[in-house]
């Protein structure tokens, strides 16, 4: 038989046989060649356009491009103003699987949805909720919310034991690390939301935490203006999980209630609801709280 196969695979590569149009086909070399061709065409077209237009004489003036009064790029941390790659109006959660330093991660990116916090278990029958995950922890001694918490402008807890925070103000999510954040007050003034959790990544730097056990980890992350939730598919320490997030390029991240029994779900583009863990939830804690996108 004449040898025509082309591109041998590496051990980490995957290819669907007999279905060239399959979306999951992973042919790096073919893809590379395609991109090289496209980029070459773009480059040639760009050079041609520059010559034709005699750049820079005819470049349109941009009022924001002055030397002294320039308009710096604003990095918005939040899911609502960020398209996150979606071109549809449909609300759904995109799931991406990846491996960073041997840590298997699933990334959940809500599309076309608004974040908020809820107190109590969200209505599982509510199909408008495309993502739900437990947010702040609950104190063992009195079952109150652990750390400062604001629900639609109403402060419900004021603790500072955890330095990581998430504020949702005007539907924009901000993730950060600070003992005293003015966003707590702002959330109370603007009907916003606020909760605290273990800090994992602070401006690209790993934050160590006391618990040393390994379990399924979950984090609320901001990266290049995008907000998403990362979940480890295997048991990980805080340290390894946080380092994987940093290697992924995450700038700020705080923990979300993890472990194998933490409750939550996501709805994908096909409308399929998937639970993060087996449905063993007791629903007995009135202060159980969730971050949801709807």
């Amino acid at each position, binding site marked *: *038989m004449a*040898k*025509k*196969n082309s591109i*041998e*695979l*590496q*051990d*980490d*590569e*995957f*290819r*669907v*046989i*007999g*279905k*060239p*149009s*399959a*979306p*999951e086909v*992973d042919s790096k070399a073919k893809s590379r060649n395609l991109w090289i061709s496209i980029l070459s065409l773009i480059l040639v077209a760009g050079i041609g356009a520059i010559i034709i237009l005699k750049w820079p004489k005819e470049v349109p003036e941009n009022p924001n491009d002055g030397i002294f009064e320039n308009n710096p790029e604003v990095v918005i941390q939040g899911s609502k103003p960020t398209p996150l790659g979606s071109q549809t109006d449909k609300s759904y959660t995109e799931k991406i*699987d*990846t*491996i960073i330093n*041997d840590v*298997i991660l699933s990334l959940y990116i809500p599309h076309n949805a608004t974040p908020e916090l809820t107190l109590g278990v969200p209505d599982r029958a509510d199909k408008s909720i495309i993502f739900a995950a437990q947010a702040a922890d609950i104190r063992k001694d009195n079952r109150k919310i652990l750390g400062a918490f604001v629900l639609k402008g109403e402060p419900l807890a004021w603790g500072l034991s955890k330095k990581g925070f998430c504020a949702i103000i005007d539907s924009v999510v901000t993730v950060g690390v600070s003992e005293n954040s003015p966003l707590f007050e702002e959330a109370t003034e603007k009907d916003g939301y606020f909760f605290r959790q273990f800090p994992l990544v602070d401006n690209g730097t790993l934050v160590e935490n006391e618990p040393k056990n390994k379990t399924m980890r979950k984090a609320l992350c901001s990266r290049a203006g995008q907000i998403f939730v990362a979940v480890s*598919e*295997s048991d990980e320490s805080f340290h390894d999980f946080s380092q994987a997030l940093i290697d992924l390029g995450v700038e700020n991240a705080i923990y979300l209630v993890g472990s194998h029994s933490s409750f939550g779900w996501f709805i*994908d583009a*096909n409308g*399929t609801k998937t639970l993060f863990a087996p449905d063993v939830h007791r629903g007995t804690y009135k202060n159980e709280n969730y971050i949801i996108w709807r």
Partner: protein
Amino acid sequence: MPAFIVISKGTELLRIPVERLVYISAEGNYSHVVTQDNRKTMVSFQLGQLEDLIGDQLGDSGGNLVRLGRGLIINTDFVFSIDITLQRLVLSDCAGCYHELTASREVLVKLKAYVEATHRDNG
């Protein structure tokens, strides 16, 4: 989709119902074809050659057979479990056919995503 894959070379011919093909593993210049009856047949083709041959015969109607790295072609209809942590892939029909294979974590992540995607599309 054609009902059979025919692997023919010299004086030998192998004719396999597509839905009974469980996986093909590489062994140097040879390959082992494993079918649902747990029969393992060695053929004198490299895995890449078999991939071409199968691709030609399936045309655009493939999708169930996928190449995993350098060493495997599997039928995704038989994927029973994927354990990325242990790098273990089990192909089974939950009857008498059961095969434990190993693959890289990276390729298992991709396979898992592919199986999930095709399950959603078909569901």
